[in-house]
Each structure stands twice: as C-alpha cells, then as structure tokens.
C-alpha cells in the first residue's frame, strides 16, 4: 500500500488491524486507538481519499490502497489549514480525539468548502470529543474553511464584540 505518499510493503498476520499496522509496523503513532468498535473515531484515516475507521479494518484489506494518516497532511513542515485551525481556535484540550477529528474535517472540506455549522457538526458526528464540547472544533473547521478559500478566517467568538 501507499502511506502518506510513500510505498510500503510488509508481511502481516491477516488478523492485524490497519491501525495496528500503521502504529506498530510503520511507527506512525499519530493515529490513535480508542474504542475498537467504530464509535469514537480516534483511529480515522483516509483510504483512497475517504475517511474510514482503521480499527475496524484488517491491514490486508488496504492492500494496494492509498492511505493517508495525520502525519501525511502537513506539507514541507507547514501545518495543514485544519491543523492550523485547531491550533488557532483551541479545538483541542487533551488531544486524544484530535488526529481523527482533523482527518474527518479534512475530508469534509474536500467535498464542501463552505460548510454551515450544521454541516460541520454532521461531518464530525463520527468523532467523539470529551473535552471541548465541540464548540471550538466547529470554529477550528470554520477557520480552516476560510483559509482554504483564501479568505480571512472569521474572528473567534471570544474575540471582539465589545
């Protein structure tokens, strides 16, 4: 398979989950393991451009596929606009859900460059966050959407208004 643009090949047990292959064989530990049931979304990666949960997929099912993880979205040391948005709008506290949350957000913005708040919330419905209450995550995605359209991001709701 191709991971973050690099061809990789390995012999794995058929039972190996994709997330374990990424973390343990390739040492790409940015993708987290949460619930192993498909609920929490911490393990979200892109397989052939679509976000999926890598804990409910065998590595061998991704044989020949193009996989992108959180490590693969920044370019030349510059944060992806979604990463920048999470930084600028405090879209995380503990950070456990963040890689998956960012991968879902990147996928959402690739299909919809001007999502409404409702569309953002629907787009990240498969990712659970226990810290933020999602409020700042929505602002982070709105920040990124504006950046990616080449516009000035909207002010955070804790800024201005006085």
């Amino acid at each position, binding site marked *: 398979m191709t991971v973050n643009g690099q061809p990789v090949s390995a012999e794995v047990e*058929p039972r190996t989950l994709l997330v374990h292959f990424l973390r343990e064989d390739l040492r790409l530990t940015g993708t987290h393991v949460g619930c*192993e*049931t*498909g609920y929490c979304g911490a393990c*979200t990666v892109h397989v052939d451009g679509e*976000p*999926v949960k890598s804990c*409910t997929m065998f590595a*061998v*099912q991704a044989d020949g596929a193009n996989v992108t993880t959180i490590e693969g979205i920044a370019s030349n040391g510059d944060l992806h606009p979604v990463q920048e948005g999470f930084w600028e709008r405090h879209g995380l506290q503990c950070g456990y859900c963040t890689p998956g949350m960012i991968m879902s957000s990147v996928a959402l913005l690739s299909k919809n460059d001007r999502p409404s708040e409702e569309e953002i919330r629907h787009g990240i419905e498969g990712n659970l966050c226990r810290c933020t209450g999602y409020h700042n995550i929505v602002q982070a995605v709105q920040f990124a959407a504006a950046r990616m359209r080449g516009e000035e991001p909207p002010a955070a709701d804790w800024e201005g208004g006085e």
Partner: protein
Amino acid sequence: MQAFHPKTLDEALAAAADGATPLAGGTDLMVEVNFGKRRPEMVVGLRRIAELREWERSRIGSGVTWRRVERDGPRAYAQAARTVGSPQIRNAATIGGNLGTASPAGDGHPFLAAVDASIEIASTSGRRLVPWYEFFTGPKQNALQPGELITAVVLPERLPERHEFGKVGVRNAMVISTVCCVVTRDTEGSTTVALGSVGPTPIRVPAAEEMISAEPSPSDSALGEFARLVSEGVRPITDHRSTEEYRRHAAGVLARRLLERCLA
C-alpha cells in the same frame, strides 16, 4: 485466520461454500472480532468485487455503501442512509452488511419493508429472490443459509409518489434507533408504514395502513387515529435503549409526523 480478497463473485461464493465468513464494510463483524466474540478461521472480503457495487435502476448491489445511498438513493432511503453510523462508517458499511447483520434497529430496513423490496441471495448453486418479510426471521436472524451471500436489494420498478424516513434516538449524531420509520403515500392515497426497533424484525402495520389509505385528505382526528393504530400495532420490548411504553408512544408520533410530511 485466513483472508481471501477475491475480485469475482464466483470466487467469493466458492469461499462461502467452504465456510468463509463474509466481510464487507466490517463495521459490525470487526467489532465482534475485536472483542473476541467471533474468531472466524476464514474470511472472504467482498470489497473488491465490482459486480456487487453495481447499481442499475431498481437493483442495488449489496456492496453499495451507505455513503452512495445517502448521495444517490431514493428520498427516504437516502434520508435513512444519512443517519447510519457516521461519515467514516457510511464510507465502509454496505447495504448488504446491514441485511446480513439484520439488527432489529437497522435503519435501512423500514424503507425496504415500506416499498416491498426483495433481497437477492446467491450461492454456488444459483440465485434466489426473497421478499423482505421472509428475509427477516428474528432479531439478528435472516433467511441466509450457509454458503449463501447477499448480492443485491431489488426495489419495485415504481416507488410511491411520496416517502419519508425518520428516527428517534437518544442523541442526534451517530445513534442507534430507539424507533425508526418510513411512511409512503401514493397519488391515490394508498399508504404504507414500516418501523424498525419496535419488534424482532422490521414490521408493517396493516391496520393503520388500511384505515389511512381510505382517507383521501385525512382530518386531524384521522391522523390521530393513524398514530394510535401504529402505537397499538408495534411490538416493542424494554431494553437498555428504551422502554416498551416509550417506543410505542414514539412510534405513533413519528409515523404521524412522517405521514404529514408526505401529505404536505
């Protein structure tokens, strides 16, 4: 464990005949594997079989994902698809897998019941078409025999003029239904109502259908009677997700609301 990833249906059917466990999107099976509830010795992956992803008019291949139904499906089926799992799950999970699991809470089932769809099943010895009401045989049980695979969902050539899906759950995002429902209404008033999560299998409520189909423009009291008959006609249980009483009540309210949308 051995894993096969064939490209053709014939190879997959041969593996199924040898006892391989079918694996489509993996959103149900893999949870059981991860929790050690199932330890399949042989798995046959279905994702690479192009034939199962074909969608020709009213025949939808079993390998079609919920993401595609959400985008391209008939209205109520697409509405249901939008509530299946989450984006990641809809990208992986298939309509065939939903039927294979045959959960009483499966959000795709009420649409199939409401429009009288059939399920196409194949084995190395041929294909058969099973009407939805013979397909679902109990909670998480279906008419599939060993060695058989679900190959397609077959909808009627013509769908009713209006059809609406709705569901009630404990939260908005990624929730398993407490009640889910599809109501259809055709031009001459003929109405169907199918519900999930309120019985061992998806169910229709003939008494409510007959009563409301005879009302060309239902009054408020006719709508109330329709809701009452739906509540009376479902067979819910009390479990960790809800109580029998609440499900009964919610089924009637939801069915009435969807009927009103069909009439609007």
